[in-house]
Each structure stands twice: as C-alpha cells, then as structure tokens.
C-alpha cells in the first residue's frame, strides 16, 4: 500500500466569525481577509512539510487545484509541484490534478506536466480533474453543460501530445491547433493518469475503460464514503474492470500523536477550523448540468449519502462534534501510531484502497505539529502497512519513485528498533 502526503492549503488566519459572516468560502469570499505576506509564509511552510515527507518515506506528494477560495489557495498546482519536483528526491509528484477544461489551449497542461516529469526525473503522476462546480463553472465560467466535453477533448489532446512523435494538427470543438509539438516530452511514456470523481457513472466508465487510477477525494469521512466506494467497486466488477486496489485513491485526515490524549490536545482546534471555516453557498455547489441527469437520478434514487445523516453533516460543519466523534464517524483517524495504523488497515481493506492520501496538516495546525505528524506517520504507520496489497502490481505510481522510495524510506526494522 502507498501513501501520498497531502494538505489542503487552507488560509489559517481567518477570523473566528468567518463562517457566520460569510455565506461561502468559495467563489466570492472577500479576498481582503488573506494577507499576501502571510499567504507567502504559509506556502513556504507547506513546501518545507512536503520536503520533510519526501525524506520520511512517503510515496507521493499531492497537490491540487482550486480557485477563489480560502479553503485551498493553490490556483495552479503545477507551481507548487515545481517547487517540490526540483527540491525532492524520492516521492512521486502527484498533481491531483489539473482542471483540464480551464486551460486554453490544454497544450499548457501537456507542457507543464512534461516539465514536472523532466524536472523530477520521471516522478510525475498526471491527475486530470473536472474541478468542483465552484472552481470550473463559477470561478472560471465554463457552462456546466459543456464541462465534460471540454474535459474529454482536452484529455485526448494532452495524451496525444505526449504520444505522437511528430507535430500534428488537432481539430477539436473547443481547441483548434495546426501544430502541436510539445517540447520537451515527459520522461514517462506517458505518466500514470489518475482521475478522481464524486460518484459520476460517466467517470467510472472512463477510468474502467482507460484503466486509470480512480480517486474518492472527500473529507466527509469513511461513513459517508463507504456507500459510494462500494458502489464503485460493484460497478467495476460488473463491467469486468480491473479490481486491483492500487487503482483506488482515498483521502483521509490523520492525526498521529504519542498518546490519544495528546492527539486530542494537539489537533482538535485545527480539525474544527478545517470543518467550520469551509462554508459553501449551496447554489455554488449545485449548478444545473454539472452532473449528468443519469448521475443525478442514480444519486437521488440509489440512496447516495445514506452513509451519514444530514444532521451529522451539519454538526461536523458547525464544529459541534467532539474530537473523538469526528474520529468515530470517520472524518478523521486519530491517536497513537498503533491505533492509526489499525484503523487505516481496516479502511483500506474494506474499501480496497491501495493509494491512501493521508491529510496530515489541516486548518490552522501549527507547523511543528504537522511536522511531527509527518514523522510519526512515516516512521510508525507506513512501514507497518506496506504488506497490504503488496501482492498486486502497481502501474499507477511512477517506476522511479517506487524504486527510490523502496531504497530510501524508513523500514519496519528501523522503525521498531
């Protein structure tokens, strides 16, 4: 099993009354709330933490794309990825991902990802995303009804730009180019492709047909994810797709400490900040046409979201859960390394997850706590879980990062000494 360090780059200095005063942390929160110099300090902190994760044996360093939000201030994940690709040695650079419909022309993605793969010596994972409705349809103005078409056209252009040895013409609906000839091409031919989703049947078909790594990237916890992920695997099975758990990625907030009491003391405030400072105005999350009608019907009639009650969702978003209730409901996995690794083993086994994306900094967590979280996770969690799914081939992380992490990561022997 593999582990990709991740954190939402959440602005940590929002006032306590932010959720009361502003309807949304997305699309239209006042930008005056973020001080540019403090944002810069925050960016440097995340780079330091991820460089540390590279030394602690993590398989990947994950970065993502969001726009116009206090929740994740990484409008270009490729910029953060570039800071990491040039200053780390082992881990994969997991861009999860570029919002393909928002790059015009999408050649930009082919070029920047190729740059990252070259700079990292072949350690790039190419994540392609639709982007949230807040990002792609409201902040970047793509008509919802066109988003999927634009994504697929861009995906075809990018993969072809990496594959074709000669310049070629591309006559798409949204992009027309006479000469596509990306310089340089990526080291990997091509980098592994991951496509996360949120339950759309169309995305399931895509990852099954193309044998991509799928991802369930949410922070609503295990109980909420279980029905969705189970349904996904049932669907893969029914369609005769590849059931290899190494092509399933999953995000999970983890809070590791020397004792359970210390975990609560060190992380509770930051967990509450994470969940309470992310209000989303409902119309920004549900534009018509973002989901296909088929997916909407499947969700309304298939009982999606049954895994967790509406009341619990509200309480989580209001910070009304105790630390251990967040843990019990699966929003977080917290406690001693022994407890955390046991819970991850259960989760990964039950949901067939081979690529965990542990979220080790959240909200306004102090750097030293996130640093310690990363150290404990790297030394005392990861080595104990390497056996899981080790019998299954992994074509979804780069060969170079697999070799280097295996050669350099803390081993179980070291960890237990």
């Amino acid at each position: 099993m593999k582990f990709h360090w991740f954190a939402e780059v959440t602005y940590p200095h929002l006032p306590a009354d932010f959720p009361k005063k502003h309807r949304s942390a997305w699309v239209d929160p006042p930008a005056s709330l973020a001080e540019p110099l403090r944002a810069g300090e925050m960016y440097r902190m995340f780079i330091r933490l991820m460089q540390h994760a590279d030394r602690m044996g993590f398989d990947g360093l994950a970065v993502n794309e969001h726009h116009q939000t206090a929740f994740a201030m990484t409008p270009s994940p490729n910029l953060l990825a570039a800071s990491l690709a040039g200053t780390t040695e082992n881990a994969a650079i997991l861009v999860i991902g570029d919002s393909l419909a928002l790059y015009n022309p999408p050649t930009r993605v082919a070029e920047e990802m190729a740059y990252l793969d070259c700079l990292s010596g072949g350690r790039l994972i190419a994540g392609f995303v639709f982007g949230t409705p807040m990002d792609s349809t409201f902040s970047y103005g793509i008509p919802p009804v066109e988003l999927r078409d634009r994504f697929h056209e861009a995906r075809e252009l990018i993969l072809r730009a990496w594959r074709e040895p000669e310049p070629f013409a591309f006559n798409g609906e949204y992009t027309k180019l006479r000469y596509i000839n990306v310089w340089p091409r990526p080291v990997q031919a091509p980098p592994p492709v991951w496509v996360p989703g949120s339950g759309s049947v169309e995305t399931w078909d895509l990852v099954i047909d193309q044998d991509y790594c799928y991802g369930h990237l949410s922070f609503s916890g295990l109980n909420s994810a279980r029905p969705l992920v189970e349904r996904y695997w049932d669907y893969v099975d029914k369609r005769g797709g590849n059931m290899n758990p190494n092509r399933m990625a999953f995000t999970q907030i983890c809070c590791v400490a020397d004792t359970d009491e210390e975990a609560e003391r060190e992380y509770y405030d930051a967990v509450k900040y994470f969940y309470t400072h992310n209000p989303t105005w409902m119309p920004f999350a549900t534009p018509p046409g973002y989901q296909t009608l088929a997916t909407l019907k499947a969700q309304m009639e298939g009982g999606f979201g049954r895994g967790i009650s509406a009341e619990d969702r509200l309480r989580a978003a209001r910070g009304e859960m105790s630390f251990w209730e967040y843990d019990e409901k699966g929003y977080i996995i917290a406690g001693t390394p022994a407890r955390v690794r046991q819970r991850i083993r259960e989760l990964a086994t039950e949901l067939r997850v081979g690529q965990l994306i542990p979220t080790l900094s959240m909200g306004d967590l102090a750097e030293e706590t996130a640093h310690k979280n990363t150290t404990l996770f790297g030394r005392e969690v990861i080595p104990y879980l390497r056996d899981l799914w080790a019998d299954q081939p992994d074509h979804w992380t780069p060969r170079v990062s697999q070799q280097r992490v295996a050669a350099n990561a803390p081993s179980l022997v070291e960890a237990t000494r």
Partner: protein
Amino acid sequence: MAITTEQVGGASVRVWADGAGPALVYLHGFERHPGEAPFLRALAGRRRVVAPEHPGYGESTGFEGFHDMVDVVLYYRRFIESLGGDPVDLVGHSLGGMFSAEIAALCPQVVRRLVLVGAYGLWRDDVPVPDPFAIEAADLGRAKWGAAGPVAEEPSIVLPEAENPNAAIYDRTRNLAAATKFLWPIPDRGLRRRLPFVKAPTLVVHGAEDGLVPAAYADEFASIIPDARVAIIAGAGHYPMVTHEREFVDAVERFLA
C-alpha cells in the same frame, strides 16, 4: 388541442398548437415550456399559435446539434419554414426572446413581426443581469413575479416521468442545464452586433419589476433595433404573460393586428 411530437431535422420536439389563421410562433423562456397556458389559449382565439419546446428541454431532443447560436437560428428557420412558407409573427420570452431576436436578425425573411418579452441577450455593466443559476428560491420568486407575487400554479408542459416523485427536480435540472449553453456565465453571445439587422417591426414587452432581466434592457433592445417600440407592464416581473395576461395579450394583439 393537444401537444404533439414533431420531427424537425434530426430533432424530435414537442409542440403545442391551436387556432387558425396566419402563424404566431411562441418561443418559451429559460425555465420551461408553459404547456397549454391560458395566455397561449387566449392568443390562439384569434389565430394559429405554434409553441415548440426547445431541444434539450423536457422531452425534446436535438440539443447536441447546438454548438453555437448559428445552429439554433438554422434549426428555428427550418421549423418556421415547415409551417407553410409564409413569414410568421415571432414572440419570444426570456431565453426564447434571445433566440427570437437572433432569428429575426439573421433570417429576416421568415419573420413578419417580432415581440420580445423579458428577453436575455444583452449586457450592460451599469445594470448587470443577475445570475439566474445562483439564486435562492425566495429571491428567484421575487424576481419572477414582481409585486404580483407568486401564482398558485406555474403554467408547465407535462413533465417527463411525471409519475416519478422527483420529476420536477429532474425536469428543472435538464432544462436549466440546456440554458447554461447560452446564458452562462454572461447572457451575451454577441446579439448587440446583430440587432441592427432586424427588419421586422418589433414590440419589446417588459415587466417593470422583472428581477431577472431588469427593465432597463427593454430600452436597450428598442434603441438598437431599427423599428421598435416598448410596452412596459407595471407590477409585472419576468412573467407578464402569466401575472398580467389580459394586458399582455392585448398589447401583443394590438401590435400584431
């Protein structure tokens, strides 16, 4: 008169039609086809009224053939020509008004007279059109109905899967998704450049309290279309034909007479 399903090019669309005489074609707004609405029946008392459902709405297909506005215009040119060959009076509401103005500009030979009702299609920085896709239900209600307040039952064509308890949600999602093609993120696809080519005498009808397309846009349309006059309906919102049926029908009939 019942709703029938007609073939238009490759599309299969629902059409409400009634009455006899020269054709009046009514193109509906961004939310839905109004079905056999009282104002359509009233108009059909004096002449033939033909009200097609837009491709992509309800049970009408052919939306995938719409890549841009030119496809919409050619689709409706074919539809209008299929009615007998004479130019028609074209009445368009909201999104249908945007389509109607485009048709009249690009295919003047098929439009005798034009009526635009709360039409989308223009943008003024000093009077921005509110986002019809990101709006609370209560605010949408105010914007639609104005001082008249919400009507007991909005006129609507029969919902696909009407027996399904979620039919209204599916229908609205399907319809508004199609509307995003032309109204998102700014309902301006260049109509301002083409309006000077409208030859048909035009009546611009607008609810004084339209909260979706502010009444300032009535004057904006009228100032660019060469032969246009404005009829403002006091107290009405985005649906004057529903809340102020008599005034609406009278104004339209007087203009088309």
